[in-house]
């Protein structure tokens, strides 16, 4: 077969399709789907015969191509003029991918720092422990740091952190901040003009959590009376 070992250089099914389109000198707006499908499947077979791991995405694309091919075989009815050419979505996807592929090549031709142009390096000997500049850090590094710690201890005592838990922390911070300033707040003041059900639930859960943590105290002078909230310990 006339295929060189070019398979691993494809960045995915779209890349392979673009290659076939170029090789066959085909108009991207008018892809002869039968030919392309055949060649595409041959490539997949070659990959498999070479025991290359054919990623699922390649197989999904194969199915898409076969689907388009079968649609093209159906007789066209005159009254379905508006119906989109089944190849159009694929052509659009290929064009978009091609534009980004070009953009990537374009980025690569820039004067890249550390490859084409250079700045002075600084020895940070005086700075112990690999200090990092604060405004250059991303939240990703924070999560990574946390993950490193978690990984080093028995993980079963840790519950998964989820968005809800963090929303609760937000609420807790908000309530504590308010109590530090105002000293006493009523329950209805805390809820304020909230009409967001989720916010009301979070406020209530945060209060329960704070009472449990013994960070706040709540008093009510009579049933259904005003609930007043204080800091458990004056600061």
């Amino acid at each position, binding site marked *: 077969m006339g295929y060189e070992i070019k398979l691993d250089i494809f*960045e*995915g*099914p*779209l*890349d392979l399709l673009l290659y076939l389109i170029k090789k066959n000198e085909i108009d991207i*707006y008018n892809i002869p789907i039968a030919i392309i499908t055949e060649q595409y499947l041959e490539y997949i077979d070659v990959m498999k015969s070479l025991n290359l791991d054919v*990623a699922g*995405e390649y197989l999904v*694309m194969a199915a898409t191509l076969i689907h388009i091919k079968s649609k093209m075989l159906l007789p066209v009815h005159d009254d379905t003029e508006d119906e989109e050419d089944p190849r159009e979505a694929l*052509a*659009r*996807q290929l*064009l*978009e*991918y*091609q*534009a*980004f*592929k*070009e*953009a*990537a*090549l*374009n*980025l*690569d031709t*820039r*004067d*890249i*720092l*550390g*490859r*084409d*142009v*250079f*700045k*002075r390096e*600084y020895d940070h000997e005086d700075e112990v422990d690999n200090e990092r*500049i604060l405004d*250059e850090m*991303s*939240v*990703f590094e924070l999560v990574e740091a946390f993950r490193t710690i978690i990984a080093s201890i028995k993980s079963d005592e840790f519950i998964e952190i989820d*968005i809800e838990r963090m929303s609760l922390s937000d609420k807790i911070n908000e309530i504590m901040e308010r109590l530090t300033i105002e000293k006493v707040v009523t329950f209805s003041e805390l809820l304020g003009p909230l009409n967001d059900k989720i916010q009301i639930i979070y406020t209530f859960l945060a209060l329960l959590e704070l009472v449990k943590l013994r960070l706040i105290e709540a008093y009510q002078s009579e049933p259904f009376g005003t609930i007043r909230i204080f800091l458990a310990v004056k600061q």
Partner: protein
Amino acid sequence: MDNLKAIIEGIVFLSETPISVKKLREIIVDAEEQEILKVLHQLKQEYDERQSGLYVAEVAGGYQLRTRDTLGPWIKKFRGIKPVTLSQAAMETLAVVAYRQPIMKAEIEKIRGVDVSGTLKGLLEKNLVRVVGRKDVPGRPIIYGTTKKFLEVFNLRDLSELPTLRELKELGD
């Protein structure tokens, strides 16, 4: 100030990251921002005119002295290290993030047609891409964007300096 140019040259030389006019102004309080900017451009021009091995790069909202690209081969020999390069896959993912930010992982994958977990993580670790926040849709997926370091590394003043993406509208023709 007669030695304003020398002071600015010295600070731009020492600064580890591109230094902004605003920051320079904080150090040289006697000069106006306008004046500082003028001197920076004068310096830039002078470095160019005398065909120095260095140039004043205008990147990521600041200024920095760098070696010219023509010196690349000698610098590589001097440093004795192979520069880290990005794979094509990483480059494509980076391009999609740069042009479409803020963007979700699923959207990048739709454009590239492949799973991008690995390349995205690599870009996060290299600090070229960052977590921008979450999208206000069910599931609140994480959205990504490029960093200041991306601008620094790719020699961009800001994102608007990116060349326009080839138009896709030709499809309708």
